[in-house]
Each structure stands twice: as C-alpha cells, then as structure tokens.
C-alpha cells in the first residue's frame, strides 16, 4: 500500500512508520503543522507541534529513507479543535481535544487529503490494535500495553476511517518500542512522552482559557447555595476537580469538596462532597460507531475519560443519542468527555457525554441533572 505516516516527532510515530516500511508499504512521512504560529505552541520535549518536533520527525524520516513533507493543517486545527475546545469550556463542558483532533484532523482532513492524492491510508503511532473480522470489517481493540492503550481517543473513528488506518504499535509494549527505536538508530528513542494539550504551551489550561476568553466572574457555592468565594472564570473548573478550589474554610464535616456542577451562563460552580459525584447513568449525543450501528440494548463496558476505569453497564441505542445505565457507579464524570463503548477489548463506538445522573446516596436525595426517561 502507499501510505502516509503521520510523524509527530515523537518515538511512537517514528517506530510506527519504520514498521510500515518493514511491512513493505510505500511510506511517505508527513508532519502536521497545526499552529498558525509554531513558536506559540509547546516547545521542546513536552508535546507536539513545535519547530523542534518537525525537525525530529524529519530526521526520523531520513533514517528510514522515506520522503518527508510538512502539511499545513493549521486552519483546520484552529477551526475544528481549538475553537471547539474554547466553545466547550464556555458551555461548561470538558472537551477532549485529542479525540477531536483524531476525529476531525488526523483521520479526516489528513486521511481525505491522502486518499485524494492517491494514497491508500494513514499510519500513526497510536496504541490500538486493528483486526479484520470474518465479515471483512475492521475491528479496533485495546492495545496489548494497557498502560498506553489509546483506543479511547480513537473511539470516534468509523469503519471507513478504520479501514484506511494502520496502527503498527498496538501489539507492543512502550518499553519495547523505545528499545526498537534505539536499535533502529532513531534519535527520538529517549524523547519524553507528550502529555497534556499540545496547543496550551505551558500546560495551564485555565490560564490559557482566561487569556482567550477574558475574566468571567462568578461564584463558587455549596449545595445549599451559600457563596463560598468569587472566581474569575468558570472555565477554570472541571467536574470532579478538587485541587485549586481555594475555598479557605473547610466544609462543616471537614471533608474535601469537589466541583459537582458548572452552570455556564451564570458562572456558578457548585461544590460538595465526593459521594455526590457518583453517577449511575448518563446520556450521550453524537454517537459514532466503529462498525455496524447496533440497536436495542448492549450489555457492555464503557470508559468515560482518558485513562479512566472501565464500567460495566447497559447501553440503549436511540436515534442520535445513547443512554447508559452503569452497574457500578462512576465518579466525577464531566459532560463533554467521550463515553467509549467496549465489547471486551473491542471498541463498539462512542458518544459525547451530555448529561449525567447522580447516583442515589443514602441520607441524601438525588439531585442534579438526570437523563430523560426512555
């Protein structure tokens, strides 16, 4: 196959490209320029998108002996990922921009362009496994290295996208990938993993949003509505957050308090005890399916945040929405995050969490938003 290898400048995508070359594919390396001003994005070892990363990707391509280009996807990235990130926070939700980037950029804009240019697909360094099923559809499964598994952030991919993707690292441990990079003479073998959000240069999401949106004063209140303090932007908070609340006075019971709810219009942030973060049901919108669209009730597991636990539950598939009943409650589930549905190790599909229902807690009446009844 003639394939594009998306090369971030990190060790994973370099080894993925190398394995694609070994497998006999005709590989062209492409680094995605995602920032209109590369100097503004994170530099050095902490993430992707910097000038240095482009240089690292180029050197890896040199070592592999493949052609290398930079594709300017900065307009698409700004429109689809950065603007969406801001809009989601403005609406009081907690977006996952990596997932969004996979859905709209890497496996959409890049893949579409590659196909139009005569390529057959895209290779990336994501940790997930693709398997061809008996009915010839392509299934995505969790990676062998559960610590590195990225099937959650790929849960938005549809069958058509999966059929044009290659994830050569899905069957490997990260430590083996680093060792292989070293063996292959790739300079990025010891480059630290990237974390956080690539376009937030210093990792300070709240500060970045404050700069973008300006101060939006509001109050932090307890569940009785008593004001605990003022804040200068609800976007600095996320459901389930405990640190950085700066409440001064402890709760009456002395227990730590967590963000339970964010009301974007008034900017009111409600805090309360951890047990009030317990969620036993949720509603999701914009479902995307990795294979055939399921119908009826699925007995499955769901993952509700990156690197989060799996929860057993039932998923009812509706028209453009899903409803999930969890058999064991989850804590601190933020609207805007993805609910990725698994059947064993296989990704079934995903939806964006729109609402959650607080689990009944002894001695406290259930409150908060609940999914609409079936």
């Amino acid at each position, binding site marked *: 196959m003639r394939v594009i290898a998306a090369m971030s400048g990190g060790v994973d995508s370099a080894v993925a490209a190398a394995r694609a070359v070994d497998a006999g594919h*005709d590989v*062209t390396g492409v680094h995605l*320029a995602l920032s209109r001003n*590369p100097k503004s994005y994170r530099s050095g070892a902490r993430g992707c998108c910097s000038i240095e990363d482009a240089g690292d990707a180029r050197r890896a391509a040199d070592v592999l002996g493949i052609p290398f280009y*930079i594709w300017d996807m900065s*307009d*698409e990235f700004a429109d689809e990922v950065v603007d969406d990130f801001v809009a989601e926070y403005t609406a009081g939700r907690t977006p996952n921009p990596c997932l969004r980037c996979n859905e709209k950029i890497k496996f959409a804009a890049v893949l579409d362009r590659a196909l139009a240019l005569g390529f057959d697909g895209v290779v990336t360094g994501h940790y997930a496994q693709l398997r061809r099923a008996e009915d010839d559809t392509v299934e995505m499964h969790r990676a062998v290295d559960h610590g590195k598994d990225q099937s959650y952030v790929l849960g938005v991919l549809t069958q058509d996208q999966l059929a044009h993707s290659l994830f050569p690292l899905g069957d490997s441990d990260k430590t083996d990938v680093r060792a292989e990079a070293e063996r292959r003479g790739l300079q990025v073998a010891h480059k630290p993993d990237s974390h956080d959000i690539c376009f937030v240069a210093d990792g300070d999401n709240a500060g970045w949003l404050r700069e973008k949106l300006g101060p939006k004063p509001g109050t932090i209140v307890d569940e009785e509505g008593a004001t605990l303090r003022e804040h200068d932007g609800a976007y600095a908070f996320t459901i389930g957050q405990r640190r950085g609340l700066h409440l001064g006075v402890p709760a009456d019971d002395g227990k730590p308090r967590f963000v339970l709810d964010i009301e974007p219009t008034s900017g009111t942030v409600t805090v309360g005890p951890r047990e009030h973060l317990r969620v036993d049901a949720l509603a999701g919108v914009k479902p995307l399916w990795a294979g055939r669209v399921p119908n009826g009730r699925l007995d499955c597991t769901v993952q509700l945040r990156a690197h989060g636990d799996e929860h057993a539950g039932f998923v009812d598939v509706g028209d453009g929405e899903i409803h999930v009943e969890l058999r064991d409650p989850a804590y601190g589930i933020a609207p805007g995050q993805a609910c990725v549905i698994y059947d064993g190790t296989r990704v079934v599909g995903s939806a964006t969490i729109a609402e959650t229902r607080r689990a009944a807690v002894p001695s406290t009446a259930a409150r908060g938003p609940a999914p609409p009844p079936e």
Partner: protein
Amino acid sequence: MNDFRHTVYLDHAATTPMVPEAIAVMTEELARTGNASSLHGSGRTARRTVEEARELIAERLGGRPSEVVFCSGGTEANNLAIKGLFWARRESDPRRDRIVFSAVEHHALLDPVTWLATHEGARVDTTPVNREGRIVVDALRAAVESDPDSVAAVTTMWANNEMGTVQPIADVVAIAREHGIPVHSDAVQAAGYLPLDFGASGLDAMTVTAHKLGGPVGIGALVIARELQPTPLLHGGGQERDLRSGTIGVPLIAAFAKAVEVSVDRQAETAGRIEALRARMVEGIRRVVPDAIVNGDPEPGPEHRLPNIVHVTFPGCEGDAMLMLLDAQGIECSTGSACDAGVPQPSHVLLAMGYDDAAARGSLRFSLGHTSTEADVDALIAALPAVHERALAATQVRSTFGGTVRSAS
C-alpha cells in the same frame, strides 16, 4: 512510483549545479595550504589567488577590484549593505533614518530591513509593485522626494527570485542620485542570466552569490563603491577592506571567480538556450493545463524578466500538493514561497502583486539552468496532467472539509 531514471531538476533559482570548471579549480585549491593574510610564500600564493579572483569578478561584473568585498553569500551581503549603510549614514547625519525598498524583496533583505525598523528605529517606505511584480517608479520617487534628506539608503532587487521580473534599476538610480542617496541592489538571481555591469548601472552596492551561477555555496560578494564605508557586521582581523572580517576562503573564492567567468562569458548563449526551453515549458503547461496562469512579465529580454523562471498559478490547487506529487516522480520544483518554520506561508511577493491567499498558495516556480534540457521540460509536461488532476481533487476535499473554504473558486 520510484522508478524514475534520474532527477529532473527544475529548481535552479534555489541553487544550480556547480560548473565543472569551478569544481576543478576548487578541488585544486582545497589541496593547497596558505592563509591569504600570512606573509610567507604560501600566504602570498593564496593572496595572489584571491586577488586574481577579485580582479576577474570585478572585470566580468563591471566593477573595480577594490569594490569586490567577499563574504559568505547573498544573505550576508544584503545584511552588510542595508544595515551597514543605515548605521553609517545615520551616524554621519541623524536625520537619515529612512529606508526605501520594495515590497518584493527576498527575505534576506526584507528581514534585516524589518529588524532595523523594530530594533534601530528605522522608518521604512515600501514601494508597491504592479501585477507583474515591477515596482511603481512614481511611488518610489514620491517616497524619496517627500523628504530626501532623511533617506539612509534605497534598495531594489535587480530581478525577483520568485517571478523573475526585472526591476527598473536605472530609474531607481536616477531618482536617488539626484539627492546623493546610495542605492543597493540584490542581483543574486540576475547574475549569470542577464548582462550585469555594476559601473554602468550607477549602483552604489550590488549583491551577488556564487551558488546561483555555478559556483559553490558559502561564498558571495558585496560589490560596493570605494567611497562608501558601511558599518561592518563582523569585526575581527579586518580582512576585506575592514568591512568584513574572517579568514579568507581561498578555494571558495577561486571557484566563485571561475563560475563568474564561465557564466558571464556564456551568458548570451545560455540565456538564449534557456529562453527557448522556457517557451517550450510555458507552451506545454498551457497545453496540458489550459487554466494555468503564467505570472510575471510575459515579455522576454533583460529589461523585462529572467530567462529561466516560470512561475505558474494552478487555480484551485495547492502548490505543496503538486510539489509532493511531482517529487514522487523525481521532478523537483519549488512552491516559490518562503517556509516559516516549516509551515508554508503564502508568498509575500504574490500578495504584493495583488494575488489572493489561495492563488499565492496554488503556485509553483519552475526554474531552469545551465544543465536543463528539453527532456527535463518534456518530463514535466508528461507528468503534469495526472499530478494536476490529483492535486485538484485533494484541494477540493480540503476546501469542503468542515465548511472551511480555502481554495480559489
């Protein structure tokens, strides 16, 4: 896909192969030892080589030997000229804080001028260009004459590196000379392709570089009138008229001189041959992609444009997609736009000429040189239809994506 027999190199304006004569001279000199500033026999031999090279270059470019200041290349020569003249002229008269230059200068001049504006308080007058990329002389005249005493220097390139358009140097010189203002010209692209005569041009300073005319990369010269003493960029041993310090690169200079000699002596013949190849290429491009637009001045001749550059806009296409597809077949060209940290930016030259962002992104520069053949041109024309079709499809995918319309209609 990769079964091409040889590379079809159509990027001579980026750099052109060394002529064999220059390689021979350089190889010979590399085997010799001697610092041209040393007083012993080896030093004298090295010095003689350098001075003979200087005389040869001066003679072929219409200057005097003392006017040839060797440096590392076009970027350094341009920096020395514009920063050096700005500093020196302002020092002698603090009113002189203005630079008059053109909207289509190479980054090697645009960036030092911008730096002078942001760091040294220079006021900059940018002369606009017409649709062919030629400066509007009346605008330059108005800028100079609005307050001639405040102009530190005027600079206008001889021929544009993206478009090939030749600038009216004689008009610029006439305007500046009335007021005693020094004029510099970046002649990097013109040297070897057009007849250059520094003395006859009336210029006060002119940039040339070896690797665009068949010499090695890493050596160039600022040809600058003896009475001008720009402030140096590099201080040290004072080699090169106290304008440029650094141990003199004898092999580079010898090869540079040989390349100047060869390219100037063959200039008329080369220009005629390349002009014919250019005509063949333009005809071929128009035949296989009828809506392609060939930019710049259509008139041939040393007053109009370089003989070797074909700059084409392919409406609705992205230049970098076409470049990649051609590259996959061993056909090498340029998008003609600068890369800012690896991200292709729309060319400031095309934007200055009045093209929109999409047209600027949808352009390619093919540049011919002394090794170009009809077979090169024919290979491009043979590959172009399929490449164009694919690039068009890729751009359409992109322009409809997410509702973001970027391509030209």
